[in-house]
């Protein structure tokens, strides 16, 4: 089962290496890992998507919490969350296909962020399934390049953390 783990960590050098190293050393599989700053300059948030059974996830949570610069660990499984990925995708778009592609982009509420003679670059965000679906509909036109973030998430009715 897929779990989204959110870890608040101290914003200092070596923390990412420590977390990534722990996952590798204990043979836990990371689907994605995103790090970014938070409202507090001392803290960063890591959002980690992990697949595993309950036993594995219990260990993932405990082993994360055990790392000294990791301040707080939450597993969002079973609670309503807003989870989003962001993707930049360059799709091959010759003039005769362009309007067709643009309407697809609109349907997915994507945004054209760059356009060349033969391609368009689109920014699109949403739940992972939507991103996957967009990639699938773009395939027939030819995908030049894809860059994706992993998932970031926040529980609904989130308690604002101190």
């Amino acid at each position, binding site marked *: 089962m897929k779990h989204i783990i959110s870890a608040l*960590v*101290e914003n*200092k*050098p*070596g923390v990412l*290496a*420590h977390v990534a*190293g722990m996952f590798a*050393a204990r043979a836990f599989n990371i689907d994605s890992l995103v790090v970014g700053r938070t409202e507090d300059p*001392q803290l960063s948030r890591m959002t980690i998507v992990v697949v595993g059974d309950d*036993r594995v996830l*219990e*260990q993932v949570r*405990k*082993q994360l*919490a*055990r*790392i*000294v*610069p*990791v*301040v*707080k660990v939450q597993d969002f499984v079973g609670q309503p969350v807003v989870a989003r990925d962001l993707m930049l995708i360059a799709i091959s778009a010759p003039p005769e296909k362009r309007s067709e592609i643009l309407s697809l982009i609109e349907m997915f509420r994507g945004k054209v962020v760059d356009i060349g003679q033969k391609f368009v670059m689109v920014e699109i965000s949403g739940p992972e399934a939507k991103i996957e679906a967009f990639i699938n509909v773009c395939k027939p036109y030819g995908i030049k390049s894809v860059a994706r973030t992993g998932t970031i998430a926040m529980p609904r009715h989130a308690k604002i953390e101190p």
Partner: protein
Amino acid sequence: MKSKSRTSADSASQITIKTGAQIIVDTLIEQGVETMFGYLGGVVLPLFDRLYDAPINFVIPRHEQGGCHMADAYARASGKVGVMVATSGPGACNLVTGLATAMMDSVPVVALTGQVRTELIGNDAFQEADTTGITRPVTKYNCIVKDVKDVARIIREAFYIASTGRPGPVLVDIPVDVEVNKCSTVGPDEMKLPGYRVRTKGHAKQISTAAEAINKSERPVLYVGGGVVSANGSPELRALAEKAHLPVTMTLLGLGSYDQRKPESLDMLGMHGAAYANYAVQECDLLIAVGARFDDRVTGKVETFAPHAKIIHIDIDPASIAKNVSVDIPVVGDAKVILGELVKQVEYRERKRWFSKIAEWKEKFDFRYDQNSSTIKPQFVIEEVCRQTQNDAIITTGVGQNQMWAAQFYKFIKPRQLISSGGLGTMGFGLPAAIGAQVAMPDATVVDIDGDHSFNMTMTELRTAVEYNLPIKVCILNNGYMGMVRQWQELFYGKRYSKSYLSNPDYATVARALGAVGITVDKKEDVPKAVKQMLAEKKPCVVDFRVEREENVWPMVPAGKSIDEMSGLDILERLI
């Protein structure tokens, strides 16, 4: 002692200007460091200059690995934090085995390493290594200090992290310019550890549930690990076992926490543990694990471990609980505190049938060896050391057969008496560990029960013992083989002794060349006399016992088997 500010103008404001090196030394003293270990090198010269006349007893090993094991054993023997200093690059790299050993066995060690100048980091400078990167997986915590203002705070944090919660090694990497730079210090800086919390007090409801389970149990077993030793929980453990009347089995690192001469002691369990301990675990209805981590050398095939038992697991590390087995009653907290709470809530039960069954197993499957053999049996040497030291010596070991026989045939009576590399299984640990233990406990008799190949790995440290007049004793159980791997090759690889022997030097001559006393014993009847002489020596003493070459450690749970599927029980029975 503290270097005063040169300008006397600000003396009224109580601000002192100190170098990073001076701050390191002052903070070590503030943390109560009386003894430390370390090896010099280029980038730690400013620090060593400040140590020149510091009131700290300093021990220089012959190799940084040895020094790290010494600091580790110093901590295990004394309960204090062991401190080791090394230079950058190769010095730091040589600490890795020592740190990993301390990490696996949860030993509080603070390692300080020098680093190249801050502006050179990442440039492949001379003697540069990514020390924090290399040591991250083998430390509880590590960091690099880049500002002299942070030195005192980070060293305080290092001692705090190393010695609290589940103890472990912490490394602080200090670039040479940070040692040289100056800053004014005004009082103690607060620690900044928002992610580090220690739960010592157990959950009251969980403790009372555990006590109820103990009171109800017909066939309980206490399974005790190194956590009880490091929490100084031995008195509470004894009180619990006596008040509730519980049999006690110990892991290798738990040995000493319960007096093995007492009838409740089931000695060590696991792969080379006592058959009576393994049977008791497999038949118990309640297993009370305290400060133990259900390591594979203890559980054997984990699916069939303690199949009839409800499991109580008391541990300070939440990640240890339910890692390898599922637990019915988890209690997170300090072993000493929780055992103390349990003592209040348990009741005495006779459990006559359970204890008589255990007594039967004990009689049938006690650890035995052939006492009539004409050769020197390694077990005989250990029994003789145990007898002549009246169960009261500090024993260190190498790794392999020597270690298992020491655990089987020396009967420990108090905590911190056995110092052995359990988790990592570091060959070469015994000799430097004996030195570290003797430094910590100058009046104790310290005996390293070692294998020839384990001893070969770090024997250069014998000169360290000579240098500092440490009267350690080394018993080499010399069978000419890497004994434990030879045993596995005999049993599982059709006796093909592939690469498991090397020619050894004459250890008595080596010992004498290094300034120690050297004795060779090749006759069984000479063993008691040699042990007596060894114990009487005031100088470090090495005794080379030429033991039976192909003796095996029994019983043995083959890899992947349940712990009641032991080999060698027929051999033990035949020796009754």
